[in-house]
C-alpha cells in the first residue's frame, strides 16, 4: 500500500477536523443559549477527538506524535480546506458550515468504514454514532432557521451563498487520488462530492433555502496544498500558544 498516499489522505482529514473543531469551540460560553452552547461545544470536542485518532494513525506511520503534530506546525503546513479556517462570523454561518461540512464528513467516514486500510476503517466504525448525531443536530437547526422568520431565513440564505464555494473546496483532489481508489483505500473526492450533493440538496430545499446556481460554482481550492487565508495564522497561533510555551510539558 502506498504510505505517502495514505498520509496525504489522513493529514487533510485530521487537519479539517482539528481546525473546525477549534473554530467551533470558540463558541463555548458565547453560544445562543445554554443548551445549544453545551451541545455545540461537545461536538467540537468530538471533532478534536476524531482528529486525534487520525494523528495517532499518522504517528504509527512515522509522523510526529499527535500533540506535536497538531501544535508545532505553521499554518502553511496545514492541509485543511479553507472552508474550515474561516472565522465563525455569526451563528448563521457557523450553522451552515456545520451542516455542509458534517454531511461530507459523515459520508467520508461512512465509506472509509470499508477501506482496505484497516486502521482508518476501524476509526470510521468507532465514531459512526457521533457523526450521525452531528448531522442530526445540523439538519434540525438548518430546518428551524431556514423556515423560521424572515430574518432567520434571509441570514441563512446569505450564509449559504457565502459558504457554498468554500464547501466545494472540501473535495479538492489530491495527487494520489487514483492510487487511493485503485487500492480501495478511499472512494475519491469526486464520488464523495456527488454523494454529498445528493444528500444535502433535499435537506436544503426542505429548509426553504436555495443552493447557488451551478454556473456560479467555483470551488475555493488550495487549502490541501498549504495555501490558506490569514484566518488560519490567527487560529494556529491561538490554538498552539500554550503548548508552545513549554512543548515537552506533561499535562
Amino acid at each position, binding site marked *: 500500500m502506498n504510505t505517502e498516499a495514505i498520509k496525504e489522505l489522513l493529514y487533510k482529514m485530521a487537519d479539517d477536523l482539528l481546525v473546525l473543531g477549534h473554530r467551533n469551540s470558540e463558541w463555548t460560553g458565547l453560544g445562543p443559549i445554554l*443548551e*445549544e452552547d*453545551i451541545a455545540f461545544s461537545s461536538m467540537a470536542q468530538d471533532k478534536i477527538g476524531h482528529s486525534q485518532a487520525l494523528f495517532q494513525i499518522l504517528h504509527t506511520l512515522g509522523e510526529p506524535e499527535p500533540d506535536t503534530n497538531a501544535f508545532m506546525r505553521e499554518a502553511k503546513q496545514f492541509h485543511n480546506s479553507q472552508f474550515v479556517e474561516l*472565522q465563525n462570523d455569526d451563528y448563521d454561518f457557523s450553522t451552515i458550515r456545520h451542516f455542509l461540512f458534517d454531511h461530507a464528513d459523515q459520508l467520508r467516514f461512512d465509506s472509509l468504514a470499508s477501506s482496505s486500510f484497516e486502521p482508518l476503517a476501524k476509526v470510521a466504525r468507532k465514531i459512526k454514532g457521533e457523526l450521525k448525531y452531528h448531522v442530526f443536530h445540523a439538519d434540525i437547526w438548518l430546518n428551524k432557521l431556514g423556515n423560521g422568520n424572515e430574518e432567520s431565513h434571509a441570514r441563512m440564505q446569505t450564509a449559504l451563498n457565502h459558504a457554498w464555494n468554500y464547501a466545494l473546496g472540501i473535495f479538492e483532489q489530491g495527487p494520489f487520488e487514483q492510487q487511493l481508489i485503485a487500492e480501495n483505500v478511499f472512494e475519491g473526492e469526486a464520488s464523495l462530492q456527488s454523494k454529498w450533493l445528493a444528500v444535502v440538496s433535499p435537506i436544503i430545499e426542505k429548509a426553504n433555502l436555495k443552493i447557488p446556481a451551478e454556473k456560479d460554482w467555483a470551488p475555493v481550492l488550495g487549502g490541501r496544498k498549504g495555501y490558506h487565508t490569514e484566518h488560519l495564522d490567527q487560529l494556529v497561533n491561538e490554538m498552539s500558544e500554550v503548548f508552545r510555551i513549554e512543548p515537552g510539558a506533561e499535562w
Partner: protein
Amino acid sequence: MINSLDPRIARENISADNTIAPLTEMDNWETYEVFHQKKRGDQHVHVGIVHAPNAEMAMLFGKEQYGRRGLSVNIWVVKTSNVFASEYHDQDIFETVPEKQYREAGGYKVMDKINRYKKENKI
C-alpha cells in the same frame, strides 16, 4: 472598545458602552421535560428539563445534557405545559389511615426477589 484577554472577545471590537438588551417574549423558549432510558425494557426516568423551540430540538438538547455520560438507549421529551400536575395544596389526598397497610403495594417487592431468583437459577 472592550479590551479583553479573551482573543475571541477582543476580535469582535465590542463597544464599551454596549448595553445588554432587555429580554423580549421570543427570547425565552418553552421548557420540555426529559425522560431518559438506560436500557431497553427499563422505565423512562425523569431527569430534568431543557429549553427548546420545538420537540426535535428538545430531544437534541436532552441527549446532550442528560444522555452523553453513561448508558442511554432512548429519550422522551414532553412539553412542560402538557404535563397535568396535582396541586401541592392537595397533598393531603395521599395521606392514608394506618390500618390499611394490607392494601399497600409494599408486598409487590417480593416479586423482585422471586424474579431475581428465577433469573439467577434460570427457572
